């Protein structure tokens, strides 16, 4: 109906309006700019502009020693810091052929999964706001605060932890960690369930999200989507299962998938992933061995042998890959990151074309990008 009329109008003379969304716009999740050509409320075309948050992280890595680079990885995807630290540490460890103590691996998994949960919670908060609901965001931030307090007790910082080290951890968990996390997990589950109930099956939310921003599985693979965005299309690809790293092969968890690859499926997959992460944490806590958490490396200056290595891991946003080249000195020769958000963002144009103006916001939200990682 609307298509026919807009076709006839367009055949006369172009009445497209150019609309600049961002870089300062409440729902572009940072400093992202979309140049939209709209026909009334329908989006005809879109041109994404990135780079407003470019800090040259990859280049900066070349000037820092190996243990200093961890701080830069913290800041790349600033929502899932532990996951980022993990993949970098794994890259260096692989290059040096180090094995990490058991306990350290378990602590890493627990922290990474907690971080996955709070990253997804931030997504829920953002999508709630994008869709116009403000209460889920506050529920999610409440939960995030709780988890971050535990992070603070563990690592000393709420967000930029700098806690993982090549070959282990900075220091062991605090003594009261068991109590803290025992207290945290039920509350966290409550909060996740609360935001789930408030949003996922709400009729208005369904109307906004279902059949919006659909992408087929083939297209998703072509665009290089990973993480929840790919799994929403029905492909059960998760690095934790496909190529288990750390100790992920010891846990029993499912990979939630969607069917249609629309915004709602992406939302649903993330919601389910939080429950799966909680399952992993519970198992990891039950299995956690005692022992050292640092390798024999100690605080020594790291000089990995010459060579290069590519390591990947499952971030909350998708598959992150780190390509590390070492020339045998104390600084990496080259660090290249394959950021999941950047690759996921590439599908935005495909999804947004022909959608409504209000959908663009929701689609961008459902891709769950972090601009710090897109621009690096």
């Amino acid at each position: 109906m609307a298509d026919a009329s807009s076709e006839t109008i367009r055949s006369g003379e172009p009445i497209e309006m150019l609309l600049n969304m961002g870089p300062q716009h409440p729902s572009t999740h940072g400093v992202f700019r979309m140049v939209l050509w709209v026909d009334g409320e329908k989006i005809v075309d879109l041109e994404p502009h990135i780079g407003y948050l470019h800090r040259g992280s990859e280049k900066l890595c070349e000037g820092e020693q190996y243990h200093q680079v961890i701080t830069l990885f913290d800041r790349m995807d600033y929502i899932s810091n532990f996951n980022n630290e993990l993949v970098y540490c794994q890259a260096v460890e692989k290059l040096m052929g180090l094995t990490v103590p058991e306990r350290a691996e378990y602590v890493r998994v627990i922290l990474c999964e907690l971080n996955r949960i709070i990253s997804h919670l931030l997504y829920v908060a953002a999508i709630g706001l994008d869709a116009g609901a403000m209460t889920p965001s506050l529920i999610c931030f409440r939960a995030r605060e709780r988890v971050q307090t535990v992070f603070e007790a563990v690592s000393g910082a709420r967000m930029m932890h700098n806690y993982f080290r090549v070959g282990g951890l900075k220091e062991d968990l605090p003594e009261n960690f068991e109590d803290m996390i025992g207290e945290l997990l039920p509350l966290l589950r409550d909060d996740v369930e609360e935001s789930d109930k408030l949003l996922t099956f709400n009729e208005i939310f369904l109307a906004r999200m279902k059949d919006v921003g659909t992408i087929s599985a083939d297209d998703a693979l072509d665009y290089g989507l990973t993480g929840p965005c790919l799994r929403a299309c029905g492909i059960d690809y998760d690095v934790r299962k496909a190529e288990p790293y750390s100790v992920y092969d010891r846990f029993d968890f499912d990979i939630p998938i969607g069917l249609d690859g629309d915004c709602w499926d992406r939302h649903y997959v993330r919601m389910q992933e939080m429950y799966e992460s909680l399952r992993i944490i519970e198992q990891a806590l039950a299995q956690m061995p005692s022992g050292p958490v640092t390798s024999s490396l100690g605080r020594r200056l790291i000089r990995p042998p010459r060579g290069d290595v590519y390591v990947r891991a499952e971030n909350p946003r998708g598959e992150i890959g780190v390509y590390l080249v070492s020339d045998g000195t104390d600084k990496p020769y080259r660090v290249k990151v394959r950021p999941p958000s950047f690759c996921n963002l590439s599908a935005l144009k495909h999804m947004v074309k022909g959608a409504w103006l209000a959908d663009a916001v929701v689609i961008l939200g459902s891709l769950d990008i972090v601009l710090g990682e897109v621009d690096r």
Partner: protein
Amino acid sequence: MTAAIPVLAIGLLDVMWIAIGLFVLFGALSFVVLSLTWLERKTLGRLQRRLGPTRTGPMGIIQPLADGLKLILKEDIVPSSSERAIFWSAPVLVIVPAFMIWVTIPASHDAVLRNLDLGLLYIVAFAVVGILGLVLAGWGSANKYGTLGGLRAAAQLISYEIPVIMVVISVAMLAGSLNMREIVAAQSAYPYALIQPLGLVIFFIAGLAEVGRTPFDIYFAESEIVGGPFVEYSGAHWSVFFLAEYINTFAIAALTVLLFLGGWSGPFLSENWVIVWFLLKVYAVILVIFWIRGTFPRLRIDQLMAFAWKVMVPLSFFTILITAIYKFYEWPAWSLTLMSAAGLLAVGYAIYRRMVGPAHRVAQVRARQKALREARLASTQSPGGTTNVV
């Protein structure tokens, strides 16, 4: 000439009284708006397990004053490419109708400026004028978001005006009058909410859309068009829009109370104090509005229009129909309740089927998918080794 003087004198006196009345009304409404902003912050805060304002006075009670002061002292920015005249006049066009409605809304039997015989017609007529101001505001600010917002406002408000009018007509049919006082008097036995629940729901939802509250805050959707018509306004001019919005919210709540919840009638209070009942009811309705705001996301503009024309308008016609049948055959009151509730349930079920049906199906398919995947994983793992890449 000599005969004209006493007429003029009376006229002057009259004008003076009206001026004083308007002044009092304006003061009262301003106070109401202040109380509403405070209440909204507090309610939303508690709803989200926050505190809301706390610093300004006990329980943050003078927060609205602080806000007002800040808004007035703020620099009033006029975009250089805007249409000055339209830009300046738009807020006035929004606030004046919002304010004029209150001329004939009675807060109790006597607490009204002018009780018109055609009060309802007057209210409905004036409510539409405000749209013009919104469209002009969007257009005059020479901002694309503003324009989009103004056009959205025009589409939305005009569509939802129809169900409002229809339901108002059905109420007028029940009461046999357009006079607010008589409508309230007609509800002395039972409030119309009991015999016309469908009407109440339609009126309330359409009213939410009329004043642009969540889930219908589409024309100034913060996350999409960043404030719509108001995007370029700041300081005092913005606060005028703000004022109008809250006065309208209050008006919709008041009309809901007057038309469906029995107005100021209530037990325990003497004739002079019934206004307390009115205020209590209105604030209760407003709390419900805030409650809805704290719960729901926002619809999309096309869904909003579809909802208006596919659900609300037919339903409002249905309301008139059942009211007419009820009046014509003079059936007992509960028959209308039954008919109305049946309509309500039918619509609720239809929405339920349309929205949650797919969700359930998706969940089922998902469970099947999971079983399939587990089967496949089990088969890939048994030969040994983990698969590398899918």
